[in-house]
């Protein structure tokens, strides 16, 4: 896109050709009123308040594209009249209940009513009953709704559930005299508004979605509110603590809204989580799973001295990736000083994957990020249950399709109705477990630059192709001439006579033809749907920006090394930009900072995981530790960003830093380590307090800093192994969480109520003799456990899913690394 200059209210501003006028204005700090437009989503033209004059013609700023030399005037007398009338219309029958409204103080209706100086009302219509609805985690009050459709737009264009839509209001038509007397746009907007309110796409009574709460976040008024938040506090009473979500590797920006607990207690309490919804979209875990802090009354000196003793005795520290970079560095320093073995299997496999990837790519990290995926038009996801592994990757996939007329391929063994529901242009391909290499070979075959790819690979790929004769039905157009009798009125006599006329017409005729076609054996191996070549051809039309996301299934795959190398080859020799999705919150940080070991020693300190002596932020260990929402520090995200997070609720106990200090390291605060993060791994030597956490008006992310992608010496060996035929057959189980759950930390929160157990798809349950709530014993080659059946309509097919968020379930014990396994399941 090229840079152009336009003039807004006499000020010359630079923008991209094709950018919406509204965005160009916002980027240059020029205010244009706008209600229904959501950055990163498509304009709906519901509010029409963004009227401006472009080269003398009235246009809507949110959908008028900037052209070189355009001259924009943001207010004229007529526009002012329109805006005032629009605001009056919004206030028609709007209850005067700001006093008890959860949106009060941050309500766009309040703001614009004041901004437009609406102090009298000229319009009226009879109201219709609009009862409030309880939609599980949301509360919808149509009485307050201004039908801006932002909720609908966010759910469709960003999240992808498309759970909301406009439904008929059942109102009387507008008084016809308004058509004459009202400003034109205001009338048109009212006419539309008067016909609808918001309802559920499913037509049912209960919202059944992935529960992100983004719709309530974008609602400009108090119509959609999080159920847990209703009437608990006024927005202005809360202090907003800028932070980073600690639940997954997306590292979303959030604010903890914090206020005292009650009239008696000054203890800060988190009332809700908010976000800069124009630039980041949260999932339900980030939005509703905020009260996972470890409440500790004071320093337990006895436990602390025991901990120090234990550290002196121990030779191993075992930990999870739900820790900050600074804590990871403390562990690394302890290792350097005392030779502890550091055990973190999930981060180690990821670290190894990155190393193998670097050997071919020559870079320490992947080249792209989710931001770029949002702007791509052909996105492929392989090796992850995308909606639960990294919700933001799913949003990027959906958003790219909706906004850029994009398309995509989703490769995964577990059927996913949510992904299928994103739209026809994202084709789901359910391959067999262990066949991920075949998928990557297929991508190389379809998209790789055969000129540049190593010769052996090209030959290997060619070996899957064969020429076969196929009978193809073809439709051809044929000219046929026939004589038909037509009735005509004789001009002279006026009588109807019959004449014969010759007519030629084109008819379609289906003929069968034997044609030689190229048969790609990889198609069958991967299990693509019928007519895949044709579908793909259609999907690929006019596509320019390609993105590939690979995920955690790869890292523990028995052939992860080969997968890493294939991934690197795709990035190198195809148009795909690559994102590698880290498995947990800070797996990337840990993988960069820590030297991880394979074998445990004899005495283990566990940090958020069981050890001979356990430090735990979950409150169940021998010594308490602060949870992420009680700490300052940084987290490294899938976007390769080092994001700062702040303390929302106090912590009064000991921290890892206190133990480190007792063991001879020296740092007053944990965040003293921020500037010491390893520069050779791509970190920057910056103080914690220097790290920003906001967005510019033009959408530029200014959060922390982006890791430097370091050059890694590659040996020039680009060989990859052919893929094996081995797959898993029989009853399969998969290690993944339901949406909104990630770790025992999300499990601990009040609002996230997902049940633990064996997740079986609704579809499967209907045809099997398992029922929800049944107690079952699951046995695999690695172990066995007993749990209950949970019915899940967000997965489909025959593969059962076992979550990791419940530490009592200990589901990992059934797997030997790879996320799929064969299992026998019986009712007990």
């Amino acid at each position, binding site marked *: 896109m090229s840079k152009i200059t336009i003039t807004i209210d006499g000020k010359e501003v630079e923008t991209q050709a094709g950018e919406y006028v509204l965005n160009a204005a916002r980027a240059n700090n020029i205010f244009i009123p706008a209600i229904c437009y959501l950055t990163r989503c498509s304009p709906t033209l519901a509010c029409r308040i963004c009227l401006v004059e472009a080269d003398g013609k009235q246009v809507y700023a949110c959908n008028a594209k900037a052209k070189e030399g355009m001259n924009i005037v943001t207010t004229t007398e007529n526009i002012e009249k329109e805006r005032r009338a629009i605001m009056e219309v919004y206030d028609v029958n709007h209850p005067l209940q*700001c*006093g008890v409204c959860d949106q009060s103080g941050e309500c766009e209706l309040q703001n614009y009513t004041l901004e437009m100086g609406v*102090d009298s009302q000229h319009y*009226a219509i009879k109201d219709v009953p609009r009862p409030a609805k309880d939609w599980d985690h949301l509360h919808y009050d149509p009485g307050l709704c201004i039908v801006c459709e932002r909720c609908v737009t966010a759910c469709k264009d960003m999240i992808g559930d498309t759970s909301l839509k406009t439904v008929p209001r059942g109102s009387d038509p507008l008084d016809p005299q308004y058509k004459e007397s009202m400003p034109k746009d205001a009338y048109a907007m009212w006419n539309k508004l008067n016909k609808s309110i918001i309802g559920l796409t499913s037509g049912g009574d209960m919202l059944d979605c992935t529960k992100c709460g983004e719709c309530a976040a974008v609602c400009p008024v108090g119509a959609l509110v999080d159920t847990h938040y209703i*009437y*608990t506090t*006024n927005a202005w009473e809360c202090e907003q603590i800028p932070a980073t979500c600690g639940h997954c590797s997306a590292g979303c920006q959030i604010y903890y809204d914090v206020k*005292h607990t009650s009239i008696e207690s000054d203890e800060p309490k988190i009332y809700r989580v908010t976000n800069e919804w124009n630039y980041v979209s949260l999932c339900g875990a980030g939005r509703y799973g905020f009260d996972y802090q470890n409440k500790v009354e004071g320093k337990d000196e006895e436990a602390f001295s025991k901990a120090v003793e234990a550290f002196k005795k121990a030779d191993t520290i075992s930990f999870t990736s739900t820790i900050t970079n600074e804590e990871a560095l403390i562990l690394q320093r302890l290792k350097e000083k005392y030779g502890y073995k550091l055990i973190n299997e999930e981060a180690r496999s990821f670290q190894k994957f990155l190393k193998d990837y670097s050997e071919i790519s020559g870079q320490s990290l992947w080249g792209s990020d989710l931001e770029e995926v949002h702007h791509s038009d052909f996105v492929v996801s392989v090796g992850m249950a995308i909606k639960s592994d990294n919700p933001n990757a799913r949003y990027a996939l959906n958003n790219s399709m909706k906004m850029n007329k994009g398309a995509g391929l989703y490769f995964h063994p577990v059927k996913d109705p949510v992904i299928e529901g994103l739209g026809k242009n994202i084709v789901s391909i359910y391959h067999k477990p262990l066949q991920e290499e075949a998928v990557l070979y297929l991508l190389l075959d379809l998209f790789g630059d055969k000129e540049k790819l190593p010769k052996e690979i090209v030959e290997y790929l060619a070996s899957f192709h064969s020429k076969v004769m196929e009978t193809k039905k073809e439709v051809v157009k044929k000219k046929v001439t026939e004589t038909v009798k037509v009735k005509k009125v004789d001009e002279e006599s006026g009588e109807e006579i019959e004449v014969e006329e010759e007519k030629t017409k084109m008819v379609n005729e289906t003929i069968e033809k034997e044609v030689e076609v190229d048969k790609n054996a990889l198609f069958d191996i991967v299990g693509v749907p019928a007519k895949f070549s044709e579908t793909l051809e259609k999907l690929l039309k006019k596509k320019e920006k390609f993105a590939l996301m690979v995920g955690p299934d790869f890292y523990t795959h028995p052939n992860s090394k080969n997968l890493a190398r294939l991934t690197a080859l795709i990035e190198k020799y195809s148009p795909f930009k690559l994102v590698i999705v880290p498995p947990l919150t800070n797996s990337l940080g840990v993988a960069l900072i820590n030297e991880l070991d394979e074998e445990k020693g004899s005495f283990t300190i566990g940090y958020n995981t069981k050890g001979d002596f356990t430090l735990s932020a979950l409150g169940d260990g021998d010594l308490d530790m602060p949870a992420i929402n009680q700490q300052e520090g940084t987290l490294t995200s899938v976007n390769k960003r080092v994001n700062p997070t702040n303390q929302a609720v106090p912590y009064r106990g000991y921290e890892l830093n206190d133990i480190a200090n007792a063991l001879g390291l020296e740092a007053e605060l944990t965040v003293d380590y921020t500037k010491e993060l390893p520069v050779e791994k791509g970190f920057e030597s910056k103080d914690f307090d220097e790290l920003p956490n906001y967005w510019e008006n033009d959408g530029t992310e200014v959060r922390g800093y982006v890791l430097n992608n370091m050059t890694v010496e590659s040996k020039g060996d680009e060989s990859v192994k052919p893929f094996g035929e081995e797959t898993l057959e029989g009853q399969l189980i998969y290690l993944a969480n339901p949406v909104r759950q990630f770790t025992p930390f999300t499990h601990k929160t009040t609002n996230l109520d997902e049940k633990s157990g064996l997740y079986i798809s609704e579809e499967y349950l209907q045809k099997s003799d398992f029922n929800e709530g049944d107690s079952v014993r699951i046995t695999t080659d690695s172990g066995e456990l007993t749990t209950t059946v949970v019915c899940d309509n967000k997965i489909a097919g025959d593969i059962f899913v076992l979550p990791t968020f419940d530490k009592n379930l200990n589901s990992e014990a059934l797997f030997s690394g790879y996320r799929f396994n064969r299992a026998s399941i019986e009712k007990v």
Partner: protein
Amino acid sequence: MSNTEMFKDRNISEDYFLLDIEDYPTTPWEKFKRVVKRSFKGELFVGLWVVLREMIKFDIHTIQYPEEKLPIGPRYRAVHEMKRLWESGTERCIGCGLCEKICISNCIRMETRYDENQRKEVGEYSINLGRCIFCGYCAEVCPELAITHGGEYENASEQREHFILYEDMLTPIDDVLNKKQREFQGFGAITPHEDERLKKTPLAY
């Protein structure tokens, strides 16, 4: 600047005059002279004599507090009251939190919740009288004429933190039903010409 020049632009009456105040003594000797002059001028004894005389005559002008109390003006700003609606007796406070926000000594705190009738309910409400400066802002901002000041000014306590709770302030239900509740007329009360200032909204019924 002449003596009254600074007041020129003020809308003051003609009767204002400046007191003739002696210059302050500067040297220790002058100060000493002033003390002696004031002490022995005899005014002290004049005062004592008046007191003695009135005591003997039993002509007492002061209020016999606490037996006697002066009536308090309807606009006096003492300890707060929470009013109820006249007709139904329901509490007027809707829990909007404006009083909490506007309070400049930050002494109002409240807890609200979503109740069974899908309404906002005020669970707890407190004013820390140890900090309240009785400025009347809360009464002025209250959209419901719920919180007002009252005439109760006797609030001695052993503790500065002594605070009052919702129940302490709320008009007893019997009072309102027996029409004994009194509207506050001070800060935040409805002004006499309120009706004229209203703009009417058209209705389509």
